[in-house]
C-alpha cells in the first residue's frame, strides 16, 4: 500500500508536528498518526488548541492554529503524535468582547469543543467539582466510534405499534432495591431488560443523556440541608456526548461503548430507544452564566439575543439556542445524524420543540427550516421525531406543530382531558371520544394520522400516576422553593384524603383509578406512553416537579413491583392485549368499515349507538374494529373487535351491549370494578345482553 503524502507533517509548532487540517467534519477526527481538529468561529481572530493529559489542570501544550490553516471561518489543523486515549483538549478563541454588540470572546477561557464526542469532568455522579481551582471543567475528549454492532440496526417498529416507557437512566436503577450490579447506569438499565420485556413495552424514551452537569445550580435545601442537583438534566453541555456518570465505566472514559452496548441489547430484545433531546437552550445560562463553549466561540450566532445583546429566554432557563440560524441548524442536524448513524438510536423527543420553530428574533415561523430539514433528512428518514409542541415563551402548538408529514406530538390535550374524565369532571365525554380515536379534532384536517398523537396521562413532568390519584395539590417543599415551582393545573383528585392514608376504601379507589387510567391509555388509538414506575404505583409524595431531587423520592423503588404485583400484572396484560388487537392500532381516521359491516370506530352509551354527549354524562363506550390480517387471524374469526365501557360516575350503571354479527360473541377481558380478578386470562364469554359497570370502572370486551 502506498502511504498518502498528507499522512506526514509539514511544520512544527512548539515541538509538535502539524499540517493544515481539513475543515470537515467538525470536531476531532482520526487521521493516520494524528488528529484533525476543526472548529468554527466567524468572529474569532485566532484559535489555539489547548492540550492536557487526562484530568490534569495544567495543559502540556498550546498550539495556535496558523492563520493560513484557516478556511473561511473554520480553524483546522492536524496534530501528530498525540496519545489520544489520554488526551483532554479545548480551544482558546481570541476575538471581540463587546456584549452590547453580542460578542463575548475571551481568550482567558478554555472552550469545550461543541462537537466533542466524549466529555470528561463529571465522570462519576455526585463527585463535587472544585469550582474555584479548576481551569477547565468540561473537557473535550476523543472517542473511538468503532463499536462492533454485529448487524444490529434500528428496529423500525411502525409508529402505531409503539408502547413507550419514559425513564431516567439513573433513577431507574439507582435505588438499592433494584439489586443490579451497576445501579443508576446504562449497564444497570440493561440488567432490567427482562422486566421491560415482561411489561411488554417496545420503546424506552430516555430523559436527557447528553452530557450535563448535575452540579449546575446545585444548592443546599434551605431547611433540610439536602443537596439539590440538576437531576433531570434538561441542560445540555455538549450535544454529541453521552453522560459519562450514567456509565459504570465513565471513570475509564468508556461511556460511549457502554451506552452502545445498552442500545444493542435493547434492540436484540425488540425495544426501541428514543432520546429526549434538549436543543432549546444550553447550560451556559444568561449574561451571568459561565462561558465554556458557544458563548466564547460565537455568541451572536449560537444564541438568540435582544438588540441590546441580552439573552432571550423562551426556554425559561436563561438562554435560547438560535436554532434557525443556518450554522446552528447544521449543528442540530449533524448531532441527530450522529446519534442515528453511530448509536443506532430509533428516534428523538424534542424538549420544548416549539422553540425550534422560532426565527432568530423569537417570532414563530410558519415554515421553520430546521423542522423541515429534520423531516426530510436522508439519514433520519426512519427515525421517530416527536415534539413537545410548546415552549416557555407562550407558544402552544399541540395540533398545529409544523409537521411536514413526519412529526408526532406529545398530546397535552389528551393528558388533561383524560385526567378530568378520570376524576369525574363534567363536560368531558366529547373530548374523551376525540382522545381515544387519536384526536382527529387535532390531526385529521391537516392530513395527519392517529399515531401523530403521543397519548399520555403522566410523564416525568408532573405527578406520577399514584400521586395523581393521591393528591389534590402539589407538594414540592423538597425542591426548596417554598412550593412555588411546578404546575398547578394538575387535574388530580386524591380520592378522599390528601396523601398518605390508611382508609381502605380510599386505597381501593386509588388502585382502581390507576387501573382505569391505564385502561383508557392503552386502548386509545395513537401511541401510548407512561412514565417509569407508574405500572407499580410509584409515588413522589406529591412532588410534581422533582427535577432537582436525586434520592429515593425520585428513584424507582423496585419493592413496589412485588407490593403492587396486581397492578404490574394488569398493565402488562393490557400492553399485550394492545399488541394482540390491531383494532386498537388502526392508524387512519378514514378507515373503511370491516368485512362484518362494523365501522372502524363507533361510540355508544348505556344504550348501544346512542352515546350521551351531555355535560353531565360520565358514561361512554366505544367500539374499535379491524379486519385481522392473514398472519394474525385466528381460525374462529377474521374480525378484531374491542369494546370499552367507561363509567366515571360514583354509582354503577347497566350497559346494554351492542349486538354482534352471528359468528361473533362478546367476551370479557378486563374489569377494573372487580379488583379480585380484574383480568381474565382466558376471556370470559358473555351471554347476557347487558352488563353492570361498577362505579368509577372500566370494562373491556373483545370477541
Amino acid at each position, binding site marked *: 500500500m502506498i502511504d498518502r503524502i498528507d499522512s506526514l507533517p509539514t511544520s512544527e509548532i512548539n515541538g509538535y508536528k502539524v499540517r493544515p487540517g481539513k475543515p470537515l467534519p467538525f470536531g476531532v477526527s482520526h487521521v493516520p498518526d494524528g488528529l484533525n481538529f476543526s472548529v468554527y468561529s466567524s468572529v474569532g481572530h485566532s484559535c489555539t488548541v489547548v492540550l492536557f493529559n487526562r484530568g490534569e489542570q495544567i495543559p502540556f501544550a498550546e498550539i495556535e492554529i496558523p492563520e493560513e490553516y484557516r478556511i473561511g471561518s473554520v480553524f483546522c489543523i492536524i496534530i501528530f503524535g498525540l496519545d489520544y486515549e489520554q488526551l483532554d483538549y479545548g480551544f482558546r478563541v481570541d476575538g471581540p468582547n463587546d456584549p452590547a454588540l453580542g460578542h463575548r470572546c475571551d481568550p482567558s477561557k478554555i472552550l469545550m469543543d461543541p462537537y466533542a464526542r466524549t466529555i470528561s469532568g463529571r465522570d462519576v455522579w455526585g463527585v463535587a467539582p472544585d469550582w474555584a481551582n479548576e481551569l477547565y471543567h468540561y473537557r473535550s475528549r476523543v472517542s473511538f466510534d468503532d463499536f462492533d454492532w454485529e448487524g444490529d440496526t434500528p428496529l423500525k417498529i411502525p409508529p402505531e405499534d409503539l408502547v413507550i416507557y419514559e425513564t431516567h437512566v439513573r433513577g431507574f436503577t439507582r435505588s438499592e432495591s433494584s439489586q443490579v450490579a451497576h445501579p443508576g*447506569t446504562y*449497564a444497570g438499565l440493561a440488567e432490567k431488560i427482562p422486566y421491560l420485556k415482561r411489561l411488554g413495552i417496545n420503546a424506552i424514551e430516555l430523559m436527557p443523556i447528553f452530557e450535563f452537569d448535575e452540579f449546575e445550580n446545585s444548592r443546599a435545601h434551605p431547611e433540610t440541608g439536602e443537596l439539590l442537583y440538576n437531576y433531570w438534566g434538561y441542560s445540555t453541555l455538549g450535544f454529541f456526548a453521552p453522560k459519562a456518570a450514567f*456509565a*459504570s*465505566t465513565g471513570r*475509564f472514559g468508556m461511556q460511549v461503548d457502554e451506552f452502545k*452496548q445498552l442500545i444493542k441489547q435493547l434492540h436484540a430484545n425488540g425495544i426501541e430507544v428514543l432520546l429526549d433531546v434538549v436543543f432549546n437552550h444550553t447550560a451556559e445560562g444568561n449574561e451571568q452564566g459561565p462561558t465554556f463553549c458557544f458563548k466564547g466561540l460565537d455568541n451572536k450566532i449560537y444564541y438568540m439575543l435582544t438588540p441590546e445583546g441580552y439573552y432571550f429566554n423562551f426556554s425559561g432557563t436563561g438562554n435560547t439556542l438560535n436554532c434557525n440560524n443556518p450554522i446552528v441548524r447544521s449543528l442540530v442536524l449533524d448531532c441527530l445524524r450522529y446519534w442515528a448513524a453511530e448509536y443506532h438510536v430509533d428516534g428523538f423527543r424534542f424538549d420544548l420543540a416549539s422553540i425550534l420553530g422560532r426565527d432568530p428574533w423569537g417570532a414563530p415561523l410558519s415554515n421553520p427550516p430546521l423542522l423541515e430539514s429534520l423531516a426530510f433528512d436522508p439519514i433520519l428518514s426512519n427515525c421517530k421525531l416527536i415534539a413537545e409542541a410548546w415552549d416557555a415563551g407562550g407558544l402552544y402548538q399541540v395540533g398545529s406543530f409544523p409537521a411536514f408529514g413526519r412529526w408526532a406530538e406529545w398530546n397535552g390535550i389528551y393528558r388533561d382531558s383524560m385526567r378530568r374524565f378520570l376524576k369525574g369532571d363534567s363536560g368531558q365525554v366529547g373530548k374523551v371520544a376525540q382522545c381515544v380515536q387519536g384526536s382527529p379534532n387535532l390531526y385529521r384536517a391537516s392530513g395527519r394520522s392517529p399515531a401523530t398523537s403521543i397519548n399520555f396521562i403522566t410523564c416525568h413532568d408532573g405527578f406520577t400516576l399514584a400521586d395523581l390519584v393521591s393528591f389534590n395539590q402539589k407538594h414540592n417543599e423538597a425542591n426548596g422553593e417554598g412550593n412555588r415551582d411546578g404546575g398547578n393545573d394538575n387535574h388530580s383528585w386524591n380520592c378522599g384524603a390528601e396523601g398518605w392514608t390508611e382508609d381502605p376504601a380510599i386505597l381501593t379507589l386509588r388502585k382502581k383509578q390507576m387501573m382505569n387510567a391505564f385502561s383508557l391509555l392503552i386502548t386509545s388509538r395513537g401511541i401510548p406512553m407512561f412514565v417509569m414506575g407508574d405500572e407499580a404505583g410509584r409515588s413522589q409524595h406529591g412532588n410534581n416537579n422533582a427535577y432537582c431531587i436525586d434520592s429515593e423520592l425520585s428513584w424507582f423503588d423496585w419493592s413496589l413491583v412485588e407490593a403492587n404485583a396486581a397492578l404490574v400484572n394488569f398493565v402488562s396484560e393490557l400492553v399485550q392485549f394492545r399488541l394482540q388487537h390491531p383494532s386498537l392500532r388502526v392508524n387512519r381516521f378514514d378507515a373503511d368499515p370491516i368485512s362484518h359491516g362494523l365501522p372502524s370506530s363507533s361510540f355508544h352509551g348505556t344504550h348501544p349507538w346512542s352515546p350521551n354527549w351531555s355535560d353531565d354524562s360520565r358514561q361512554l363506550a366505544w367500539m374499535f374494529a379491524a379486519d385481522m390480517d392473514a398472519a394474525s387471524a385466528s381460525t374462529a374469526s377474521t374480525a378484531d373487535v374491542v369494546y370499552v365501557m367507561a363509567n366515571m360516575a360514583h354509582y354503577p350503571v347497566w350497559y346494554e351491549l351492542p349486538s354482534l354479527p352471528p359468528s361473533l360473541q362478546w367476551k370479557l377481558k378486563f374489569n377494573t370494578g372487580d379488583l379480585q380478578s380484574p383480568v381474565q386470562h382466558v376471556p370470559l364469554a358473555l351471554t347476557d345482553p347487558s352488563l353492570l359497570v361498577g362505579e368509577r370502572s372500566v370494562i373491556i370486551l373483545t370477541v
Partner: protein
Amino acid sequence: MTLEISSSLEQGWQIITVKGQVDSKTVNELRDYLEKEFKSALPLGLDLTDVPFMSSAGLRTLLTLYRQTQSSGVSLALIGLRPVIADTMKVTGFYQYFTVHASAADLPATG
C-alpha cells in the same frame, strides 16, 4: 511503564503471558509482540493474570486479536482475566467474544 511479555507452548496452545497495565502508553508493545510472535496456526491463550488494568485501547487490541484469530480459524482464550476487567468488558460489549479460563490448566486439550 513497560510490559513484560513472554510466549510458551502448552498442550498444543501458544500461551502469551502479559504482565503490567495495558493502556494507550503500553498497548503498542503488546501489538508489536503479537505481530511478531503470534503463530497463527496454533490456538492462542492470552494469559492476563498479571494485568491489573486494561484501558479502552487495550480492550480494542483484544477485539482486533479476536478478529484475527477468527479469520485464521484458530481458537482464542483469555486466561486469568481479573474480575474488574471482565466487568468492564461485560458492560461495554467486549466480553461476549471471548472464551475465558481461570488458568492455563483449564484449557481444553486441543484448541
